[in-house]
C-alpha cells in the first residue's frame, strides 16, 4: 500500500476538479460548469454552496428553485455521506493551508509556539456575524470577502489581486496561528462542520492497536476531534473532522481507519 494514498487522492480530486472548471471557461468543456459557489454537472445536476444560499436568504434575495435544489444536493451529499470532506477533498485553499502546516512541522514551529491563542469556535461566530451583516446590508456578506471564493474564482476566471488572499492565508497559517484559517476562522468550514456531524463516513480508532505515538494528533488539522486516541475505541463523530485521512496515513499501527458510522451501537450506548 502506498503510504500517502489518501493525500495523493485528495490532491488529484482537488486539482482535477479545478482543471475541469478551468477548462469549462477556457475551452468550453461541459462536464461541470460554474465554480464552487454554484455549478452544473453535465447540464443537469445543479450544485450550490448552501452557506452562500443561506446568506442570500438572509440578505432578502428571492431564492430560485434551481439554487435551492443545488444547495439541497450539496447538503444531502455531505450531510449523509461525506461529512466535512469539502474542506480537505475539494477546497483549493486546503492546498495552501496544508503546505503552511507542512512547513510548520518541518521547521518545528509547533514546538516553539505550543499554546494556540485562539478559539476554534470563532468560525461559528463568523457565521453568525456574516448573517447579521447580510441582513443589515442586503448582500451576501461573506461572499464579498471570502478568500476561498477569490481563490477558486481566480483559478477559473483570472486571479487579479487574488494572489494577495493566497499569500495572506499562507503567511497567517505559517507564522501566526496553526491551522488558523481552515481550523479557526473560515465560516464555510464551520458550516460544513455543522452539516457533517451526521454523515456516514467516519474515522474509527481502535485503542487496542494504538501505541500512543501521537503522530495522528500532531498531523491532524482539527486535533480536538481525536480526543479518544489511546483512551477508547470509538468513531470520530465530531463534524469538525474533515475526513482528510492524514491520521490514517501517519498511523504505523493501523489503529485508525475509515468506517461506516455505527448507527445501532450508537443507539444502545445512548439508551
Amino acid at each position: 500500500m502506498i503510504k500517502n494514498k489518501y493525500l495523493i487522492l485528495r490532491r488529484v480530486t482537488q486539482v482535477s476538479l479545478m482543471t475541469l472548471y478551468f477548462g469549462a471557461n477556457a475551452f468550453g468543456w461541459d462536464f461541470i460548469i460554474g465554480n464552487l459557489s454554484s455549478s452544473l454537472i453535465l447540464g443537469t445536476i445543479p450544485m450550490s454552496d448552501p452557506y452562500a444560499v443561506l446568506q442570500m436568504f438572509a440578505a432578502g434575495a428571492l431564492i430560485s428553485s434551481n439554487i435551492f435544489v443545488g444547495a439541497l444536493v450539496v447538503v444531502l451529499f455531505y450531510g449523509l455521506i461525506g461529512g466535512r470532506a469539502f474542506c480537505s477533498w475539494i477546497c483549493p485553499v486546503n492546498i495552501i493551508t496544508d503546505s503552511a502546516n507542512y512547513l510548520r512541522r518541518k521547521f518545528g514551529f509547533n514546538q516553539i509556539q505550543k499554546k494556540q491563542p485562539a478559539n476554534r469556535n470563532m468560525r461559528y461566530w463568523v457565521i453568525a456575524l456574516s448573517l447579521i451583516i447580510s441582513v443589515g446590508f442586503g448582500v451576501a456578506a461573506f461572499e464579498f470577502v471570502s478568500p476561498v471564493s477569490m481563490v477558486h474564482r481566480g483559478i477559473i476566471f483570472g486571479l487579479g489581486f487574488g494572489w494577495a488572499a493566497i499569500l495572506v492565508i499562507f503567511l497567517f497559517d505559517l507564522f501566526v496561528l496553526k491551522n488558523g484559517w481552515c481550523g479557526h476562522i473560515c465560516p464555510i468550514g464551520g458550516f460544513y462542520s455543522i452539516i457533517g456531524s451526521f454523515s456516514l463516513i467516519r474515522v474509527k480508532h481502535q485503542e487496542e492497536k494504538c501505541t500512543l505515538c501521537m503522530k495522528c494528533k500532531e498531523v491532524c488539522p482539527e486535533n480536538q476531534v481525536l480526543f479518544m486516541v489511546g483512551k477508547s475505541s470509538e468513531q470520530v463523530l465530531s463534524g469538525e473532522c474533515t475526513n482528510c485521512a492524514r491520521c490514517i496515513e501517519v498511523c504505523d499501527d493501523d489503529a485508525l481507519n475509515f468506517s461506516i458510522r455505527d448507527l445501532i451501537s450508537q443507539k444502545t450506548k445512548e439508551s
Partner: protein
Amino acid sequence: MKETMTERRKFFLTMARATGLAALGGLVWSAYVDEVTASSLMLRPPGALEEDDFLKTCIKCGMCVEACPFDTLKLAAPGDNKPIGTPYFTPREVPCYMCTDIPCVPICPTEALDITKVSKPNGELDINISKMGIAVIDTKNCIAFWGIQCDACYRACPLLDVAIKIEYEQNKRTGKHAFLKPVVDSDFCTGCGMCEHACVTEKASIFVLPKEIALGKAGDYYIKGWDRNDEKRLENATSQTTTTEISREKAIDSLNDMEGLLDD
C-alpha cells in the same frame, strides 16, 4: 470566595474580549461591504435585475461569463474596484453582440439575470428589449457635432435608425454644409455598447452608462397631458401641501419705500 471571583472575572473578560473582537471584525467587514457595493458604474449582462437586487441575488458562479461566446462578460476580480465576483462588461473593449438566443441569461441559476426581462409577452426571447445601459454622447468631442462627417456609431448600432438616429442641421459656420448629428433614443437603446466600440475618437465620445445614472426622472409634478398612458404614472402619486404666510403689506409700498436709498 476569592477563587470564584477570579472565575467570574475570567468569564467577564472572555466575554468582553469576544465582544470586542466581534465589534472590530463586524465594523471593518460592514464598512468594506458597504463600500464595495456602492460602486454602481458597472454594465451588467442583459436581463440583470436592478443593481441592489442583483447584488443580493448573484451567487458569483460565472456561468454567464462561460456562456458568452464573445468573451464580452468578465467576473470582477480583486483589484478591479468593482463588487467582487460579479459579471460586467466593458464595451470599449468588447461590446455585447446581442446574440438572439441570449446564452448568458437562461444559464443563470439564481435568476439574477431574469429571463422575463428579455422575453416578449409570448415567452419568445428578444435581446432588443434588454436594458444594459444607455448610450450618451459627449457633443463637445463628437466630431459629427463639429461638422465632420462621421456616422460610425449610427452604422454600428444593431437597432440602426431606431436607437441612434441622425439629425440634419445647417452648419451656419460655413453656410453651405450640414451637421449630421447622432441622437440616442433612450426608449430603444439597449446599452450593448457597439457604438462605443466603434467610436473613432481617441477616447469614445459616445459611451454607455448604467441607466440609473444616464437617465433623469421627471417626477410626479410634470405630466404629458397629451399622453393618456403618462397619466397612469400619477395613480400612486402622493402630494404635499406647503403654506407660506402672505405678507400683509401692499405691493406698491415696496416700490415707494425709499428708506435705505435716502440714507446718504
